[in-house]
């Protein structure tokens, strides 16, 4: 059962500082290998916004013993898959392969950690690919508006700009700057490797990791991450007209850094407010008041700061102010009336079910361990989550909500359609005339 897997985590650090986490999982003949570097867009200053993401692309463009794109091809050709993603706090490389290909993956990952080629010609080609990715994202009007909202929310903090970066920086970052960024941040001491799957023993896996990564020289200097200011005080209300037919309201509150003890209480309340059709927000806004078609929320905890986000999508006949006031009321009610014992039990049941399903896939276990170790401060935070949940008191949870979700720190964004679709307008009216 789930405890068996989590109790078998092997945690080892090589002499050069590379941390290794291994979990044996033998229900499928596969193994997942992930390398997480502890840098992302939060370590980018003006002029190099987007460099972490560009480096992620260049990591597939060849190293001393591996030709350009050969890493991905080698994995694909054995039936596996690989990918990578860049966030604010980390850059992760994901490989899943049949069990007999573990050593091949370790060789590929070690080669690009130590000996990335960073050819100028390939960098120029890849710069075009990255611009294509940027435009794909920016063609989405809602995503584009959200980036603006996020900039305001994290104003003057390293999280102000998303990992996608700034187009003018993407167009101008030089190969020399890229080489310098790579040598600063891509060293064994600033990385962890997580291996989950069907291998013979953790001891043998560590021997293999030592064989491929043990000779990589540790960096002379420890990289210095950016410092963080306190969140900008004050609330904002902004409206943007977008080429999107459905009106959307977004409300954001500051939230703590991911390693804070306050994270779990906010997660519990977010589940009660937002998860499922019996959540408070859905019941009130969608079912009872019929002011929204869908509504919910999500917490976005980062290494140094966070955001609790609530949203509602509604029909054009509904006044935004009514949606906003209904959403704010649900948050206020949590602060004044608290949460019930039944709601606490529901959160515990959901958490237990989610945990069992998180453990079904080797890739998912890798991801959770990598995230907890890199962003939360320790993988143990994820492992012990259910135990911590059991100990939390309802009063403690409400105190946390009051501490963070303050009205005078609320940021609101209203996305108003440029054109109103008459049928959607009418459907909204009919819905209200014949209430459900």
């Amino acid at each position, binding site marked *: *059962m*789930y405890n068996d897997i989590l109790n078998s985590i092997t945690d080892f650090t090589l002499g050069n500082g590379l941390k290794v986490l291994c979990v044996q999982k033998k*229900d*499928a003949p*596969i193994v997942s290998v992930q390398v997480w570097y502890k840098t992302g867009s939060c370590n980018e200053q003006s002029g190099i916004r987007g460099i972490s993401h560009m480096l992620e692309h260049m990591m597939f463009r060849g190293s001393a013993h591996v030709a350009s794109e050969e890493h*991905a*091809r080698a994995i*694909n*050709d054995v*039936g*596996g*898959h690989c990918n990578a993603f860049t966030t604010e706090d980390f850059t992760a490389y994901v490989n*899943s392969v*049949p069990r007999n290909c573990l050593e091949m993956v370790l060789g590929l990952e070690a080669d690009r950690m130590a000996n990335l080629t960073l050819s100028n010609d390939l960098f120029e*080609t*890849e*710069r*075009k*690919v*990255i*611009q*294509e990715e940027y*435009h*794909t994202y920016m*063609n*989405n*009007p809602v995503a584009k508006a959200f980036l603006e909202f996020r900039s305001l929310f994290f104003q003057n903090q390293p999280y102000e700009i998303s990992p996608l970066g700034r187009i003018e920086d993407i167009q101008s970052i030089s190969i020399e700057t890229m080489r310098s960024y790579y040598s600063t941040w891509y060293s064994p001491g600033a990385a962890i490797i997580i291996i989950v799957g069907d291998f013979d023993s953790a001891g043998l896996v560590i021997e293999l990791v030592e064989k491929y990564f043990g000779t990589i020289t540790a960096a002379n200097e420890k990289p210095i991450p950016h410092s963080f200011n306190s969140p900008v005080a004050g609330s904002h209300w902004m409206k943007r007209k977008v*080429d*999107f*037919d*459905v009106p959307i309201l977004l409300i954001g509150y500051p939230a703590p850094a991911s390693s804070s003890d306050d994270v779990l209480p906010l997660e519990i309340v977010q589940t009660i407010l937002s*998860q*499922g*059709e*019996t959540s408070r927000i859905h*019941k009130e806004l*969608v*079912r009872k008041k019929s002011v929204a*078609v869908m509504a919910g929320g999500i917490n976005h905890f980062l290494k140094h700061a966070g955001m609790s986000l609530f949203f509602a*999508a509604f029909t054009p006949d509904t006044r935004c102010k009514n949606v906003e006031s209904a959403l704010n009321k649900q948050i206020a009610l949590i602060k004044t009336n608290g949460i019930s014992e*039944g709601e606490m*039990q*529901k959160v515990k*049941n*959901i958490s237990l*079910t*989610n945990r*069992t*399903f998180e*453990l*079904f*896939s*080797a890739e998912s276990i890798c991801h959770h361990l990598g995230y907890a170790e890199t962003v939360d401060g320790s993988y143990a935070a994820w492992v012990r989550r259910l135990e911590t949940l059991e100990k939390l008191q309802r009063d403690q949870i409400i105190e946390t909500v009051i501490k963070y979700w303050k009205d005078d720190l609320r940021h609101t964004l209203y996305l108003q359609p440029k054109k109103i*679709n008459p*049928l*959607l307008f009418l*459907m909204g009216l009919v*819905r209200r005339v*014949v209430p*459900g």
Partner: protein
Amino acid sequence: MTFTYTFPEITEQVMPNGMRMLWIPDFNQPVLTVSLQVPFGRLHDPVSCEGTAEATAQCMIKGVPFLTTEEFTEKFEHAGAMLHADVKDEYTVFGTRMLVKAADELVPLFWNMIINPAFEAKELRRIKKEMLTGLQTESADPNSLTRKHFYAELFGSSHPAGRYHSLQSIKRISSEGVKSFYELHSGPQESILVIAGAMDVAQMQTKWKDLFLAWQKETKRSESAINTIPLNENRIRIIDKPDFSQTTLLLGHPAVTELHERKIALSLANYILGGGNFSSRLMARIRTETGQTYGIASNIHSHKRFGAFAILTATQNTQLKSVIMSIIDVYREFVEKSVSETELEKARQFALGSIAFELEGINNVVEKLLWLRFYNRGNAYIESLGEQIAQINSTLVKETLQKHFKYDSFVIIAVGKQKDITPQLEHLGSIWHFHARENPLRKE
């Protein structure tokens, strides 16, 4: 490459009411997964009421006559269980997963929902509103627009795959329509139930036998005939998105059915053309060598009675012509000269190696079993895949490509800034222009 895969222990039976049942004990986690496949999907939508399958399925999971929707949903959500209806083209899967300790209460409730759904009018109104809103969001999504216009152009309105739900068709869906759709298309004879998880199978079979046998219902369905439109010339559509700096592009043509004898050969070939990510020829030419796209892929979407092949990518408006000509160039060379033995060997290795990922975890096993049984395939289809794939050589692939992939014309869909991209496509044939909110069947 050697390949061995054996499914876990499965107890399979056909119940006296005609329903196929599969029981899979799995003690890795203290959970139970229940999945029921019923034989209706998007392709069974009544003409002019497209969206009925979706509305029916979503209405079903709102509950049973003896509980309010709120009470019904609360039973599942309070226990931490999830309940969903996933409407695909050819069938729908109703599923729930739960902690084993909740099974005694939730499995009978789930089953009551299947055999005696409440179909409350107010829930249908809410679902229609959600569907309309979803439809509105699709007009901003280039991939969605591309897919809908592709099927509309390739198959036309007389083919079920050519028709999608629209504002008008959703509006026409009624309570009576949903109930009669359910009556016509759901019943035990063509349904498959899979229960997997931490359980004693014999004990559960005894405990729930009467429950499952309570579904006594005859279904008298008939599949309507489908016609396809011959592809004798390029058929081009541009869907105008004046604010877009990038064009989403699709090129496609008909393909073989899922049960066609050459389907596996074509799947292997497609890995080499565009299905194999960085190992594919299209990715190498359009992304790796020239940086003209973030991604490009080709897929064969095969069903029981038809299939479609499509290449999908996105690129800057200014370089659309260059990209489309490169794609056609790669495609033609692929069909004419076929594939090398080295490429084919890599495709074989991918096909066999990826099976382990498709079957990791009990949920994936359940999904794969439902897919197999829908096509009347036994477990041997997967377990003998190594032998089937080994028989496919480059000569067979070449012959297959010549016979089933040799198209001089394509359906071409471009979603982007009409003013900029029209001149770049005019040399390929006549163009039909649409705006993003328009019904894709307007052309007819």
